[in-house]
């Protein structure tokens, strides 16, 4: 089962996604990247039905880039999130709804870091931390317990390491005012 998690800090957003691309019982790929770069400071994490994820995420990605080309400046994370939600909602009652669950994470110069949770029914919520997948059942309660708004990046990464489920590896990225940074790929460490 696929898993996404995002945690917002005082001046950054930390996101992680698992790396498995599965087809029924077989893991076809162990290093599959589920994050789509919408702009220099916005990442879209997308899980759900097989073809819908890539199709929808690339559609949003290209349209956000088109906006930049037409208007000369980038969409803010809030605007990108609402645009994504609108598209998801429009397709929801069409012949071809997209069954995708999303996390949109970005850093805005004016508003600071932002993490947006979106599900396949196009519900949108800005949240300090969010997760998708079966792992969400476990991690959300832990995050409730241990999350504090002023946490530093390092402590949150450590927090992240503790929650790793029975999935082989994760891609972790950090978004702050300097853009998107790759953190090390986390393999499962026995005993946390």
């Amino acid at each position, binding site marked *: 089962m696929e898993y996404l998690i995002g945690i917002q800090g005082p001046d950054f957003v930390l996101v992680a996604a698992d790396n498995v*691309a599965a*087809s029924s*019982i*077989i893991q*076809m*790929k162990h290093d*599959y990247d589920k994050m789509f770069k919408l702009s220099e400071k916005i990442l879209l994490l997308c899980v759900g*039905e*097989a*073809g*819908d994820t*890539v*199709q929808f995420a690339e559609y949003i990605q*290209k*349209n956000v880039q*088109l906006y930049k080309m*037409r208007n000369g400046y980038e969409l803010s994370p809030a605007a990108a999130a609402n645009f994504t939600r609108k598209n998801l909602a429009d397709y929801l*009652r*069409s*012949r*071809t*709804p997209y069954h995708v669950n999303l996390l949109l994470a970005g850093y805005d110069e004016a508003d600071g870091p932002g993490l947006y949770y979106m599900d396949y029914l196009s519900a949108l919520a800005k949240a300090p931390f969010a997760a998708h997948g079966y792992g969400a059942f476990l991690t959300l309660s832990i995050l409730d317990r241990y999350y504090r708004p002023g946490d530093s990046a390092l402590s949150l990464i450590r927090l992240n390491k503790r929650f790793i489920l029975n999935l082989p590896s994760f891609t972790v990225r950090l978004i702050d005012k300097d853009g998107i940074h790759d953190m090390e790929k986390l393999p499962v460490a026995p005993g946390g």
Partner: protein
Amino acid sequence: MALQDVCGFLDTLDDTGPCTYPPNEMGYMWRTASEFDRDSAFHFLFPPQQCSRKNRVPTLFSSTFSSLSPHQQPFQLSHGTTTLGFIFQDGVIAAADTRASCKGLICCPTSQKIMPIHSHLVVNTSGSGADCMLWERILTREMRLYQLRHRKRLSINGAAKLLSMMLHPFKGTNVCVAATLCGWDGEETRETLNSCMEIAEVKEAVEQDTGVSTISDSALSSVKMASVNEQEILKDAYALNPAVSDQNTKNVLSFGGRSGPRVCYVCSDGLQLKGEIISVGSGSPYAYAVLDDGWRWGMTVDEAVALAREAVFRATHWDAYSGNNVDLFHITAHGWRRRDREDLKEEYYRERERKRKKIKEREKERQKREGDELGEGDIYSVHCG
């Protein structure tokens, strides 16, 4: 938005307007997207409304069809096969079994599941046989058109993307295609073209790879086919660009992308994966087990061919829906080469024979050891000899 208008994408997917075509005698309606560029890859007849997935928006016409039952299949489709493809330092190996099955019966024991698209790309097909044949032909057509329009070959990843996009409107219908594109992305230099055209040179090169030792007529003819393709491509290039001189050897058909072996999986439900080892079908778990164990990037051609054969053989042994023969293609920068179709029944008996011999030898050794231990070993050794 602008991108949609350019692609005409929404015109094909959106279905809100009333249909203006009269129903045929079956009561179904086949719609084509109007105001459409006839050359577009997305120009298809779309299936009637019942086949659309999930929400059935009630419209003027669906009420007339409410009494009709969904279109019945004449027989159950089943997707039993083993196909695999992997890359290594010296190219790509594509292998597949040859059994076409249908609900517990073998339709055809000698079907061909690996189809060459062009000189540097083959596709392993699995899923519904008819769908695979059709989509393979559509892909061939589109790639050839791309090549003629842009004077360069579409990359493997590009071809996968194209196929994925073409299959997307049929998601949720019964179209079942799981294709693995195996090929070599690369620069076409005059040198490689010349070597392709000279069969003798290729034969030499091939004979040095002792794994593909027996160059049969089929292999030679496939090499010939590859070289013929190169000639055609070169002719096209010259026709389109007569100013090309002999000095510009590297740039005749070169394109900027990185070259190398590629394997890409495209599924009709939308999954698209690039990787190093891809195996598809009911026998794929068994094949994966063998491949994961033996695959290394630095394998020789011998080892790679042996690994692919072994993987398909084991899969056909355990999986009821795979079997009969194994087809093997090897794609390098020079194009694809085909190995003789091999009957796996022979391999099974050979292996049984090997096992039997091994057991016999082990038995002999054991008895010899026992005989020695006993010292004189007169009566016993006579018995056991």
